[in-house]
Each structure stands twice: as structure tokens, then as C-alpha cells.
């Protein structure tokens, strides 16, 4: 009698293994479907002129050079603002953040990470665009920086907390003051982890669209000044994709190939790098 029950239980178990495996395979299939379709549609439309030139009236070619430049400029400025603040806040949370103030900041960081990025766009619109009376690359970059800061802060904190306590005690026992322990011993030990977090946060903001829609807006020209509206790859993709023209749809796929390629490369590099490390 127990034989039959036993077989039944084993059968149920193997069915469930199959079902869960099917879930995993489905997710990977979706990933492959998306990536391969981007590659298929994107490669058809990509060429040198597309990469360097600015948008032209429909049917006359044109490209996304200004969008690439705008994305690069805003990501750069956002990183210059966001990385130091984020890393500094992370160090604070890890080294001094066990009291009520640290807990508050940690809670707010997590909250900020969960806030939809479009909300950050609205905030910057009211804070910067309205007083300046125009959209600008600066406003876009600050919106991206605000998205970046809590992410960087929390990964930095996590990485610093991974540094063994024994290493801190070794330095303290030599008579090093707290700040020197942090700077000389803890930060170098956590550096590669912090750099990884920073890279991933850069990948993350380079794919953001919503916070740029009404802060940086868009522009049809190369614009090297942060106080004027600035184009970005993501907003450009959105505009192309939602427009009525097939030529523009083509360009949306090509721009997507560039954007996704960049983001995947960063993710894969970080992956290889961290696997070697640990």
C-alpha cells in the first residue's frame, strides 16, 4: 500500500520540479525574445550617419548623435553629483548609522528607492524648471542624481559592512582614530564593491526616461550647454516609438540597440569582475 503512495508523492515532486523549471525557462525565453528582436530590428537601421547626425524631417534620414551626446552629458553630471553624495551617505550609514538618525536616513533612502522615477521628475520640475522658466540638461541631470543617490548609498553601506570587524579592530588597536580606520582600511577594502555599485547605478540612470520627460525635455540639435533643453537616448526612443512613421520606428529600434547594448555590457562586465573577486 505504501508503495503506491510513495510513487504518487515522487510523481508530484517531479511534476513540481518541471513546473518551476518551466517558469525559469519562460523568463529566459522572454529575455532572449526581447534581446534578439532588438538586435534584429536595430542592426538593420544602424549606420555611422545615424550615430552622429541630428534628427531630420521624416524621410530624410537623420540620426541620434545629439541624443547620445545629451545622455552622456546628463549621466556624467548626475554621476558627479550623485556618486560623492551617495558614497558619503553610505559611509555615514555603515560607520555611524546605528542610532536613530542613521535609521531614519536608511528608511528614507529605501523609501526614495521605491518612489516612481516620474515623481522625481515632477519634483525637479517644481524645484528647478518652474523657477528657471525653462527645461534644461541641468534639471535632467539633477533628477537622475536624485535617483542615483539612495541606490549608491545603500550599496556602499552594504559593501562597507562586509569588511570584517577584525580589520577595523586591528587598526583601532594601533591607535588609529575612527575616521582614519574608515579612510585607510575600510574604504580600500570595500572599494571594488563600491565601484561595482556605482557602475550599476550609472547603468540604471542611463536607461531612465520618465524623470527626463519634462525636466530635460528634448532637442533636435547638438546642445553643449546644461542650461538648455537636452536630448537623451531614452526620450528620443519614446518619441520615435510613439510617432506614426515607420522610418522613426526603425530609428527607435536602432537607438534601443545602442542603449541596451551599453547597459548589458556594463552589467556583464560587473558580473565577470565581481565573480573573480569573491
Amino acid at each position, binding site marked *: 500500500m505504501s508503495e503506491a503512495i510513495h510513487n504518487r508523492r515522487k510523481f508530484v515532486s517531479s511534476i513540481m520540479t518541471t513546473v518551476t523549471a518551466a517558469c525559469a525557462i519562460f523568463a529566459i525565453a522572454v529575455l532572449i525574445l526581447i534581446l534578439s528582436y532588438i538586435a534584429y530590428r536595430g542592426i538593420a537601421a544602424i549606420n555611422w550617419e545615424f550615430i552622429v547626425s541630428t534628427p531630420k524631417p521624416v524621410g530624410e534620414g537623420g540620426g541620434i548623435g545629439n541624443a547620445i551626446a545629451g545622455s552622456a552629458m546628463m549621466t556624467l553630471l548626475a554621476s558627479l553629483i550623485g556618486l560623492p553624495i551617495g558614497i558619503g551617505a553610505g559611509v555615514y550609514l555603515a560607520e555611524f548609522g*546605528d542610532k536613530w538618525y542613521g535609521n531614519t536616513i536608511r528608511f528614507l533612502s529605501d523609501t526614495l528607492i521605491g518612489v516612481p522615477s516620474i515623481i522625481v521628475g515632477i519634483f525637479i520640475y517644481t524645484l528647478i524648471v518652474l523657477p528657471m522658466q525653462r527645461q534644461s540638461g541641468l534639471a535632467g541631470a539633477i533628477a537622475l542624481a536624485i535617483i542615483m543617490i539612495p541606490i549608491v548609498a545603500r550599496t556602499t553601506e552594504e559593501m562597507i559592512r562586509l569588511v*570584517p570587524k*577584525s*580589520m*577595523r*579592530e*586591528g*587598526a*583601532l*588597536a*594601533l*591607535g*588609529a*582614530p575612527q575616521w*582614519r580606520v574608515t579612510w*585607510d*582600511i575600510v574604504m*580600500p*577594502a570595500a572599494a571594488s564593491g563600491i565601484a561595482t555599485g556605482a557602475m550599476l547605478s550609472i547603468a540604471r540612470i542611463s536607461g531612465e526616461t520618465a524623470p527626463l520627460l519634462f525636466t530635460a525635455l528634448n532637442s533636435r540639435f547638438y546642445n553643449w550647454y546644461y542650461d538648455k533643453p537636452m536630448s537623451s537616448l531614452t526620450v528620443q526612443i519614446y518619441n520615435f516609438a510613439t510617432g506614426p512613421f515607420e522610418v522613426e520606428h526603425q530609428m527607435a529600434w536602432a537607438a534601443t540597440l545602442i542603449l541596451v547594448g551599453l547597459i548589458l555590457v556594463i552589467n556583464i562586465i560587473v558580473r565577470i569582475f565581481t565573480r573573480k573577486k569573491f
Partner: protein
Amino acid sequence: MKSKISIKNLDFHYGPNQALFDINLKIKEREVMAFIGPSGCGKSTFIRTINRMNDTIPIAKVSGEVLIDGKDIYAPKTDVVSLRRKVGMVFQKSNPFPKSVFENVAYGIRINRMHSGKSDLEDRVEKALVDAALWDEVKDRLNSSAFGLSGGQQQRLCIARALAVQPEVILMDEPASALDPIATQKIEELVVELKKEYTIAIVTHNMQQAARVSDKTAFFMLGKLIEVNPTEIMFTNPEDQLTEDYITGRFG
């Protein structure tokens, strides 16, 4: 000889739990005192009160006096940083920094600004490594990572690092417990050598080690100091029944 360290009525609490009860103890200059007792008896906690390493634990509370050269190190105006320079520590698990061999030893010298130039720094590093009986093994690889050394070498590097800042007291928290017998022997020889210049407090779970290296031995149990005596007496003719039971292996 006068007392280098003198402890009076020391109590220690972790939050609601009392870990040390009314400890009274004197350690003389250039004396090695070993601390033995079953695990969890408070011996590690005790030596960490001598350089205020327990300050890093927020819920820890100390009362009583710990005097070094007659000064209470828990007095409000004590400079913890200079205290720790004066009282070096070697930990149970070797904890080299992620730096080169040279930079590990040089670190304490640099932060305390003890050197007068590059060649002086190099001399001090060399002397510390020689004193830690490590120089011959590492002199050709000073610039390679400290993580490349063997476990025993890493521990002696940590001793050299502690010696480099010229402490007066060295605390050792089971310094050989993670090492193989040969590396352990080297550390023990080193302790005997170091006592010519330093006052040493060493925690060990190995009674033979205590017998081999120390002048005096203190026996802790359940947070209380049961007995302190010269090591020969402790191991041949202990005063307290508990000490005898522990030493003869009846428990612990």
C-alpha cells in the same frame, strides 16, 4: 617592581547581562600573565577592557578602575587613541590589512607620525619585523600582499604591526588558537623573547601554553577571577578547588 596595570573592582555588563564580577588584579612591568578558563568565562572580555576595545560595542558598560601607570584609563579625559598606541593588541584571528607586508607594519607608525623620514620608517619596519621573528621570511617580499603569507606568518605580521608603534603593554587574545603546532611554537618563543621589553597579557585556552610562556596565571570562571598565582604554583599546587578541577581536566 611596580605594577604596570592594576585593576580595581571591575564590573562589566553587556546590556542586562553581567560578564565580569568585581575583578581585582595587578600585572607587574615586564611580566607575562596568562589568562585561562573555560570558554565564555570572560577572559577575552577582560583583556579587551585594558585597551578599551569594548568601546566599539554600544551596549557595553564598565565600572571600577583600570589603572595603567597609575592612571585610570576610564577617566573621562582619557585619550583612547593614545591609550591604544600604548597598549597594543594581537587578535585571535590574524587580521592583516589589505595592503603590502611593509605597509601593514608601517601603518601604525605613519598614523602616529613616529618616523622622521623615509629611511627611519624603513628602519622601524625592519626592527619590528626582526623583533617579531619574521624579517628573514619576508624581507624579499615586503611589497607583496600580506594575504599571501601563511597563517602563522600573518599572525607574526600582526605582532610586528603591534610592536612597530612601540607599545608598553601587549594584549594577546588567543594568538595561536588558529595556528598549527609549528607556527604556535614560534609564537610562544616570541612571547618569551618579547617579555624582556614588554608587559604582556595573554589569553589562552591551552594550559600547556600558559605553563610554557607565563610568569603568572589567572584563572577565570563565569566572569569571576578565581585565582591568580605564579604559574608554577598554579599548575602544581593551586589554592582553589575550582582551579584544581579545571587544571586536572575534571571540567571545561
